[in-house]
């Protein structure tokens, strides 16, 4: 007899949430298998954070059904959160405590004994690259260290699922790469990862599956490569500089699809070699030839207008 497929780590059907007149989440379906790294992408105000709050049982949905690690939410959300770690968007570390005290105090909220937490602290700090800083005050930490401490804090209960709201926003490239590396390690350990981000590069590197949200809905879902293959031409040529209009008028026939963003033209195609050779001969034009990425998909689906 075949074993039944494992219950999803997160499942949501027809999720809805309104704030006054505005509907922030308008019918979201999610199904995240154990061990997946799932990314929620979307512009500001797309409903990513609200979706996470609903999944964690921190807000009551106006419609839909949620199960978190197999338990119904919000009815049994508190129990479900015992096996979940959360890295919130805003830094909510305790500024009055040292690094180790932050972990100790947080572990107590899970009903863990002091001795058990203290025994875990060195490994957590080692993981977060904060070994030797146990007794430092929070204000002595850099932004990257604080983020890593928030990650260590989310691991204090050895969670099966890690929920992260923009885990690398505001970090410099070094710090971001370090966090990515740690998240990969957590995924290798078999934990489920659910994160929001608006760094497409982050989603492309980390996530086995992503959902693009806009206006409270999921408008596309799949593995990053699959989304790129489904929604966009594989080659991109970005061109800008004086004489762009003239060149575009002449080269129009060389690329099947051109998108304009201000003074830059994005030329998409399966083969852009002819356009590339042509633009290289123009001394005034600057250009970049690259493979299409998730950001191209994202911008195609959600538009290039600013979201505030």
């Amino acid at each position, binding site marked *: 007899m075949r074993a039944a497929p494992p219950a999803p780590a997160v499942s949501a059907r027809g999720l809805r949430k309104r*704030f006054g007149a505005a509907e922030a989440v308008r019918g979201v379906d999610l199904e995240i298998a154990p061990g997946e790294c799932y990314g929620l992408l979307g512009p500001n105000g797309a409903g990513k954070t609200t979706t996470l709050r609903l999944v*964690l049982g*921190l*807000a*009551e949905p106006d419609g839909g059904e949620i199960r978190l690690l197999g338990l119904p939410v919000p009815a049994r959300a*508190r*129990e479900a*959160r*015992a096996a979940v770690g*959360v890295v*919130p968007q*805003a*830094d*909510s*570390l*305790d*500024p*009055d*405590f040292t690094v180790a*005290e932050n972990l100790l*105090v*947080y572990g*107590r*909220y*899970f*009903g863990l004994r002091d001795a058990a937490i203290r025994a875990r602290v060195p490994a957590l700090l080692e993981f977060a690259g904060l070994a030797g800083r146990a007794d430092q005050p929070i204000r002595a930490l850099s932004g990257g260290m604080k983020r890593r401490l928030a990650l260590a804090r989310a691991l204090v*209960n050895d969670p099966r699922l890690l929920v992260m709201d923009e885990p690398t926003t505001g970090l410099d490239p070094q710090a971001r790469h370090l966090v990515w590396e740690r998240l990969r390690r957590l995924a290798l350990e078999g934990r489920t990862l659910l994160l929001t981000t608006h760094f497409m590069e982050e989603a492309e590197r980390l996530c086995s599956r992503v959902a693009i949200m806009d206006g409270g809905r999921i408008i596309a879902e799949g593995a990053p490569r699959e989304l790129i293959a489904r929604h966009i031409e594989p080659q991109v040529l970005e061109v800008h500089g004086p004489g762009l209009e003239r060149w575009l008028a002449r080269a129009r026939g060389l690329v099947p699809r051109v998108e304009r963003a201000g003074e830059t033209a994005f030329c998409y195609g399966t083969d852009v070699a002819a356009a590339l050779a042509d633009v290289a001969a123009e001394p005034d034009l600057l250009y970049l030839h690259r493979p299409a990425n998730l950001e191209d998909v994202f911008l195609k689906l959600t538009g290039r207008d600013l979201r505030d």
Partner: protein
Amino acid sequence: MRRARLYALPTLSRRLVPVWRRNFLVWRKLALPSILGNLADPLLMLFGLGYGLGAVIGTLEGTSYFAFLAGGFLASSTMYAATFEALYSAFSRMHVQRTWEAIVNAPMELEDVLAGEWLWAATKGFAAGACMFAVVSALGLARWPAALGALAAVGLVGLAFAALGLAINALATGYDFFNYYLTLVLTPMMMLSGVFFPVEQLPTALAALAQALPLYHGIELVRPLLAGRAPQAPLAHAAALAAYALVGYYLAAVLTRRRLLV
């Protein structure tokens, strides 16, 4: 949020303990200035007014004016300490530092956080009253063992003002908001509740108003017990304080849910 959940009676769970302990750990690091702050203000007032005015007034209700004031300040310093903790400190944790937000990401309910904050602010109030009590005892103004009853009454005063403070906290838009409560509610209450002079001195209408105030009931318990006398109608005063504590906490729970559980 569904109405039933918004207006449900709050439950008390043991999960409030780690919240209380979190605040206690912070306080332990800042204990000395905190105790000094709790003591300095009321003691300066007590010695200034007690000796200065006391020389003019002589005795009041059969005791020295200093002893009369001591009973009043025991209750009012408790009121202020519990209130400040439930206003400014709780607001910092709720709104500025996002400590509450971090806690409810763990297997904790908002009610657990609120209950921990309630007992913690009451503890701060009690500690302020107990510090005053120690000084007053050292001056020989406490009559044992009845004076221990005054400490119990101080505990009730702490619970009542901690609960009321948390209800105000749930409405606050910023730290300045608390000025309304402090100047429009607590300062008049301090004047009307018999801290400085017996309530009977007030015009009848004001005296009736005074008798509805929680601080009045606290003082009616603390002052006689401190002097070793039995209070008049102790159960009624204790019941009034308990009612302020419980109704105030219910109000705090509903208002806090309305603010945060959206």
